[in-house]
Structure formats: C-alpha cells, structure tokens
C-alpha cells in the first residue's frame, strides 16, 4: 500500500513539474517528509546529495528514497514511476512540436508556474535549512557552498564531497 502511494506521488509530481529536477524538490519534501513521514528532513537532504553526486539526472534520488521505503523493488518502481509520465507526454509532444510550442495555454501558464516554483523552493530551502544548519560550522559550509556553486564553475559534486570531508573533520 505504501509502495503504491509512493509510486502515485512520483507519477503525479513528475507529470506536473516542468523545468528541471529541482522543481520537484518542494513537492516531494511535502509528500515524503511532512505528510507521510517516510523520511526525515536530514534523510531527504541525503537523498538530494545522492542524486547530485551520482551521474545522470537528479531523479535518481528517487531510487535512493525508494530503496529506503521498500528495498530494490522500491528503487525500480521509483524509477519507472518517475519516467513514465515523461515517456508518455514527451512522445506525444514530439509529434506535435510546433502546435505545442505555439500553444497560448502552455506558454502563459508556464509564465505563472516558473516564478511560483522559485517561491516554493525558497520555502523548502528554509525548512530544510532549519534542520541542517545547527551551528556555525554547518552555516559556514552552507554559505561557502552557495558562493562556490552560484559564482564559480566548480562542479557541485566536488562541493558536496568536500563538505562531507569537512563534516568528518569537524564532528569527529
């Protein structure tokens, strides 16, 4: 039953979010952490880290979460549920590319959704920040990571690995 719910959430979230893996973060955090308590905020952050340091799209974080919920089967179903909406919708759109591109409804609703997603992400970053940033060291790591990723060309993978090393060093 949990597994079915988990898959339905992933299908819905992936069918509704446009413009990048990070757009799904607020939706998944709400469902997985706040509503169903399958993960803690800390575990959710760990899942994002896994999605980021592994090659391929961020969505593989769902395989990590799926494993935590019900093992290998959970991982596999997570990936199927994440990509099924893409497969169906994108193949339909490929055939009608120009009609879709010029569609007034699609274009104008994106104009509302895109900035709204920024607002949602800010709210989620604050809530995750409250769980993760507990002292000056964690706050310092977060600020440094922000500066490195936003203003330099350093690969976020290295920033995350570096932060792990710092964590091991400071919290021995």
């Amino acid at each position, binding site marked *: 039953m949990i597994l079915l719910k988990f898959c339905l959430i992933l299908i819905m979230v992936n069918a509704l979010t*446009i413009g990048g893996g990070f757009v799904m973060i607020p939706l998944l955090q709400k469902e997985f952490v706040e509503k169903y308590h399958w993960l803690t905020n800390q575990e959710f952050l760990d899942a*994002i880290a896994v999605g980021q340091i*592994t090659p391929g799209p961020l969505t593989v974080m769902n395989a*990590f979460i799926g494993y935590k919920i019900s093992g290998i089967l959970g*991982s596999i179903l997570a990936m199927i549920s994440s990509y099924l909406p893409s497969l169906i919708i994108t193949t339909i759109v490929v055939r009608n590319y120009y009609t879709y591109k010029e569609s007034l409804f699609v274009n104008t609703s994106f104009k509302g959704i895109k900035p709204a997603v920024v607002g949602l992400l800010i709210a989620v970053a604050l809530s995750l920040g409250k769980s993760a940033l507990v002292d000056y060291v964690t706050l310092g790591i977060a600020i440094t990571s922000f500066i490195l990723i936003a203003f330099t060309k350093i*690969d976020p993978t290295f920033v995350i690995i570096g932060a792990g090393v710092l964590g091991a060093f400071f919290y021995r």
Partner: protein
Amino acid sequence: MDKSRNISLKNIFLVFLKIGTFAFGGVYSMLTFFEKELVEKHKWITHEEFVESVALGQMTPGPPIINTGICIGYKLRKIKGALVAILGQAFTGTLLAIILAIFYIKTRDNVLLGSILKGVGSAVVGLLLSIIYKMARGTIKDYKAALFAMAAFIALAIFKLNPITIIFIAGFAGFLIFGRKSK
C-alpha cells in the same frame, strides 16, 4: 526526418549509457556530452534537431535531460528508441543510488558517516540556495513574476498549502493574467 535511420537499439542504448555514466555535474555538462556524442561523433541527428530536442525537453514535464533523450530516441527509432534512451541514461545513476542506499542503511548508526552527512546536508542547503539564485535571475524579471513567487512562498511557508495545488493555481493564474494580454 521520417526516413528510417538504421541505428540498432543496442547502439542507442550504449551511447545513452555512456552519456548517463560519464556526464557528471548536472544538466549542462550532460548537454555538451549529448551534442558531442550524437551530433559530432555519431552524426545521428543534426545540430538543429539537437537544439529542438533540448528546447522540447525543457518545455515538457519531468526531468528535462531525460525528456531530451526521449525526444532524440523517438526521432531515431520511435517509441522503442525513446525507451532505450531512458534505460541507458538512467542505468548507472540508479545502480549507484541503490548501492549508496544499501550502504547508507547498513551504516546508519556509524558516527563517522553521521559526521560526513552533517557536512553534506549543509552543502545541499547551499546548493539549493544557488539553484534558487540562478532560477530567480532567469525568471523573476518584473513585479508580476515577483508577486507570483511571493504568493507561492506564503502559500507554502505560512498557509501550508500542498505545492501541487499551488502549481496548478499558479499555472491557471498565469494563463488568466498573461494570456489575455498577449492576445
């Protein structure tokens, strides 16, 4: 475009497997990798088709990079090509995520892992902030967009509305507000 290109499913899988395995560091590195492999090296698609696929990937729901792959796979071998493109792209990442999850659950009470994850979690918060910063620069260009962002923030942070509902409302409001003007 519709004349059949004789590319075997196995070759499509292998190229996408390579893209999904060696393109670290998010969407942009993957895109450069895509272009090198598919346009320059294998010449399966033209530069224009590639650009169109990237644009389409960003306009459709789900992970853009996967959608771009679906689009290219579909152009090459219809639905089977699309399916194989997904499998190839997601294979390595999924496998690694499962391995990490097994390790994560087994060593959960390990003190060292706890310390490492404390650092990692903080970095992810910084990562999210930088994503927000980049997204905001690209999308919030006038006061109307700023209002949409603020309204969504308040709806989630204070009124605890479901983000799915918020996205629906934002989409509909966008249609009502921007749709009327452009007509």
